């Protein structure tokens, strides 16, 4: 199992360690519910060093990123970040990714741990004909996420970047605790917060300093368990659950990342075809009508007929209800529509609800 540079620090804090995508990662420390609530109300610190990084440079860097992704990377100026996807010709997902515009000929792609090697192979494998260099940098970077309403208050004294001036989905280079870092105002929780990338060989001090600075303010270390409940409340996609190479970008209700006007890109003809023909299914949010929690892969029934399975499902620590995401037949996706989920052999009522389940108040 691979270990991040923060491995021993997690164990020292009582982190319960599990294997995740080949990494030994903390799943929880104090417990999913207190960790979740700390991020919603104060702040939480995550080790997300398992995430992957790919650097694309060269004269055709922008044209290459434009070909690989449905969103319009030409809208980015250096210092900006964009949520987008790597798509197959069928407009299904190779992965969902963040694109950091570093310069006119330099784009930094952040990919999911589960897809790290696959994505690099995909990107490198499509580079022919483009004047670009593709470099797999996952091993060089460690990454921390500091999330929650107090994230800026915790990070500012340790960073030489003016965080108040750093807007959402923007990044800046600077020093955190004297160590070179790239800091972006991004995250996977639905809260304000930052992601901190560093190539420093000994980044443990950053973790320790953030924990110490944040502790009096209620900051807690956060494991993968609460990372999942937080992202689901905010309806942020989890590759493998909500999106995959079997689901299209339109079915996933991510039309907002598709910019057809920008020119040709991988998957565009499939998107146009699906737009013309109409969708047969779509990803929607649901909540359980009664007790019981729907988990991923539980069987789904619409009008008594089997229709796939639950994509994501958990107990929402904030709403104190069982919530989830599911692909339903398009005619059954209006808010309030009822369907059933089989929980341990018994069918239980669920209903479609508007998403996201949680949206933070604007700063």
């Amino acid at each position, binding site marked *: 199992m691979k270990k991040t540079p923060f491995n021993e620090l997690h164990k020292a804090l009582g982190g319960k360690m599990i294997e995740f995508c080949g990494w030994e990662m903390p799943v929880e420390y104090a417990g*999913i*519910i207190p960790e979740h609530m700390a991020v919603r109300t104060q702040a939480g610190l995550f080790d997300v060093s398992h995430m992957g990084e790919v650097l694309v440079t060269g004269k055709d860097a922008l044209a290459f990123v434009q070909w690989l992704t449905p969103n319009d990377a030409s809208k980015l100026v250096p210092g900006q970040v964009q949520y987008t996807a790597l798509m197959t010709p069928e407009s299904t997902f190779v992965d969902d990714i963040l694109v950091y515009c570093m310069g006119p000929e330099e784009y930094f792609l952040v990919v999911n741990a589960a897809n790290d090697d696959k994505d690099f192979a995909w990107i490198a494998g499509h580079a022919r004909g483009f004047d670009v260099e593709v470099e797999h940098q996952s091993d060089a970077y460690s990454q921390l996420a500091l999330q929650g309403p107090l994230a800026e208050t915790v990070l500012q004294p340790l960073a030489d970047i003016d965080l108040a001036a750093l807007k959402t989905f923007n990044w800046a280079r600077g020093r955190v605790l004297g160590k070179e870092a790239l800091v972006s105002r991004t995250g996977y929780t639905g809260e304000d917060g930052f992601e901190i990338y560093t190539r420093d060989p000994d980044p443990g001090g950053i973790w320790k300093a953030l924990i110490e600075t944040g502790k009096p303010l209620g900051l807690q270390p956060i494991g993968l*368990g609460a990372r999942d409940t937080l992202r689901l409340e905010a309806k942020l996609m989890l590759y493998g659950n909500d999106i995959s190479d079997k689901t299209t970008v339109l079915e996933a209700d991510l039309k907002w990342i598709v910019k057809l006007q920008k020119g040709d890109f991988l998957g565009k003809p499939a998107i146009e075809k699906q737009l013309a023909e109409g969708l047969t299914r779509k990803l929607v949010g649901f909540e359980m009508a009664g007790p019981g*929690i729907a988990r991923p892969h539980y069987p789904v029934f619409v009008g008594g007929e089997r229709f796939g399975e639950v994509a994501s499902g*958990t107990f929402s*620590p904030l709403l104190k209800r069982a919530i989830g995401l599911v692909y339903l037949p398009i005619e059954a996706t209006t808010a309030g529509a009822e369907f059933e989920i089989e929980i341990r052999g018994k069918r239980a009522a669920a209903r479609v609800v508007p998403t996201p389940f949680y949206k933070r108040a604007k700063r």
Partner: protein
Amino acid sequence: MYPNDLRYSKDHEWVKVEGGEAVVGITDFAQHQLGDIIFVELPPVGKELELKQSLGVVESVKSVSDIYAPVSGVVAAVNESLGQAADLLNKDPHGQGWIARIKIKDAKDLDGLLSAADYEKFLEGLERS
């Protein structure tokens, strides 16, 4: 840590014998492993349970686990307060977090359970492995 008047299964249930009935719950070790417990599915009163048959389900935020009957018999009562406060299993697993009372069918089942000292030794073995 583990009360001497309870007996324990290797599946991490505890049993307290009161007259001909066994009060059943999950151990402190089990609740720690599960994390924040939010829902308990209880068996219907009157249900007949074989030894090791699932008598209910405990759901935490991250997982679902069966609770196995540590003795055979008929469900005489269930802890209705868990419907509103499943976290009693976290807060007081060996007391207020009891799950069900089973009318013991065969007292021999109790011989298969561990004393507090033996259960603690069993846990030490788990942590070492």
